[in-house]
């Protein structure tokens, strides 16, 4: 069983005086384009769940009227993955480098080079460790998809073979064994 990583990253978003939301707009546009489907994470087989949020402003406690505020906008990236963070980052970069450049590339301090190594270093510089993590189940993404598929395959088999004779049952089972043992797995995000 692979270990589970909870990655939490907060990166500052560049805020330019002459173009107040130029970079942030690029991020928003990119996120919107990938919101429903075509998710860059779908090709990273280790990602369970991921979210990206733009933190426009920190919310002070109710009743704090001192005007406490952050001076920069931040991008929150929280992700639950199997295995090591570096493997995930490399995978994401390989699948969709443009996405990385259009999101984190717009943040303050991201070097002006292309290459997964800079992405890894940047995320490392912005990530926070030691969360209290909770995982509802102890499976990798691949195992989860396998088990879910098996569940549906078995349900279909049982339903389709109600009231069959023992002989027919055995014959059908022999035929369907392989479908159950090694079913065609759905791509992540399509189950």
């Amino acid at each position, binding site marked *: 069983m692979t270990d589970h990583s909870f990655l939490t990253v907060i990166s500052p978003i560049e805020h330019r005086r002459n173009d107040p939301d130029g970079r942030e707009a690029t991020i928003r546009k990119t996120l919107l384009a990938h919101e429903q489907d075509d998710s860059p994470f779908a090709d990273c087989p280790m990602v369970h769940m991921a979210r990206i949020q733009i933190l426009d402003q920190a919310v002070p406690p109710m009743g704090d009227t001192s005007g406490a505020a952050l001076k920069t906008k931040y991008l929150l990236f929280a992700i639950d993955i199997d295995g090591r963070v570096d493997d995930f980052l490399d995978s994401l970069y390989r699948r969709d480098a443009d996405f990385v450049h259009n999101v984190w590339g717009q943040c303050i301090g991201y070097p002006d080079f292309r290459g997964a190594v800079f992405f890894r270093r940047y995320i490392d510089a912005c990530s926070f460790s030691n969360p209290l993590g909770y995982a509802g189940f102890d499976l990798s993404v691949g195992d989860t998809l396998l088990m879910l598929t098996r*569940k549906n395959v078995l*349900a279909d088999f*049982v*339903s*389709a073979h*109600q*009231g069959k004779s023992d002989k027919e049952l055995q014959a059908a089972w022999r035929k369907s064994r392989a479908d159950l043992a090694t079913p065609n797995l759905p791509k992540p995000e399509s189950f």
Partner: protein
Amino acid sequence: MSSTTINTKDIQGIFKGFGLAWPKGRFFFLNYKSDKAGRALLKHLCPLTSFHDLKTVKPDVCVNAAFTCAGLEALALDNDLLYSLPEDFRDGMRRRASINGDAGDSAPEHWEDIWEGHQVHLWVGVYARTDAQLKDWDKAFTTWVSKTKGISIVGSQDVSRLVSSPDVPVYLEDKDSQPQKPVLLEHFGFRDGIGNPPIKGLNDKHITGGGRINAKGEWEDFPAGEFLLGHVDTNGEIPVAPKPDGFSRNGSFMVLRKLEQNVDLWRDYMKGQAKKLDADADDIASRMVGRRRDGTPLMPAHDDFDFKYSSDPEGRVCPLGSHMRRTNPRDSFGADFGSLLVDRHRILRRAITYGELVPTGKTQAEVNGEEGQGLMFIVLNASISRQFEFVQQQWVNYGNEFDQGNDRDPIIGTQCGHDQMVIPGDNAAGRETMVCDALQQFVVCKGGDYFFLPSISAFEALASDAQGWRR
């Protein structure tokens, strides 16, 4: 403002329910052209029958009434009041079709015409002891309406109670499943009207098994606020309600759905499954419903009300996917939690059947032709979205919380043609698993809407010509 004692004179009679004492009924759906005509109608209907009346006066004819959102708007009420109405109510049932699973045959485009274009402003439910009394009232009322300008009856629906009798067979194949004692029936031949939550301060006596289960595992009655506005609910709060307090207090939201029951289809399907599974059709039917025909629970029980599900977490005795277990899961989610996760989603049902009973061996067409059979399904709750819609959507048309995946309620769920219900087997008891596949649309919604059921005093205030809540 809240009080622990509830003024039953202020609450409409439907809260108590018109049981077998008033077995005949007629629903009128009315429209009024102006606020003035509306007030005339309300005034004519006063006084409505109260909860208190049903217990003491016991009139021959009982009248209750409730408004749709269009009906309240047509009364030219103050904007403050109208804007304080909750959005689910303002949307109405038609716009909430996707939440309630009203698709396919139940889709709003197939509903009866009266539900189109917000014509229905007021529901008037009339319940009588005998047919003759009902006819008299009906005649007087329709004459009055025809004479009064600006008021029209856009639709009406006869309803009546069905009572089982050993002479009228309602079983499928097994004679023994016929209810022996006379019980209130619905058209599929099952006992109806049991399992409603008892309400603190309204019920005469505590009913073990109907209410909620506290942390100690004991049964408790529900606080009134879950069903009656202006009172404390199970969270210890007064639920959000329309303003002002006088308007909503002792009132409630009412969901009315006309549910057509395809008795022939149901019986054929059950027999077909029984043949396929080499099993008893009545047994399959009762496992789908979750109770026997006469209301006996499948779970070991003290009586028809007092039983729990937590001893059967896998649904091998009473299937988790059965209609009863879905709509009132009791402590299905674990003995540790009691009914904590269920309490906020309970509903008070005040349904009444329409159409004649179809005895076994006859078809619906033979009994009453085109008219059809079914249920005027009525729900009372404090929040339509939290209670009725939640049950409909999360418990009836979705099975996650019962470990049923996407499988829907076999009786009233929206079926797509390839849906199944799994009745788990039990190796210890030597009972085989039954998978009922290709479930059919046995119950079709033919229309309905969300109503506001005001208190007696609020109804009278709305009827009065004083400026009151008008704009």
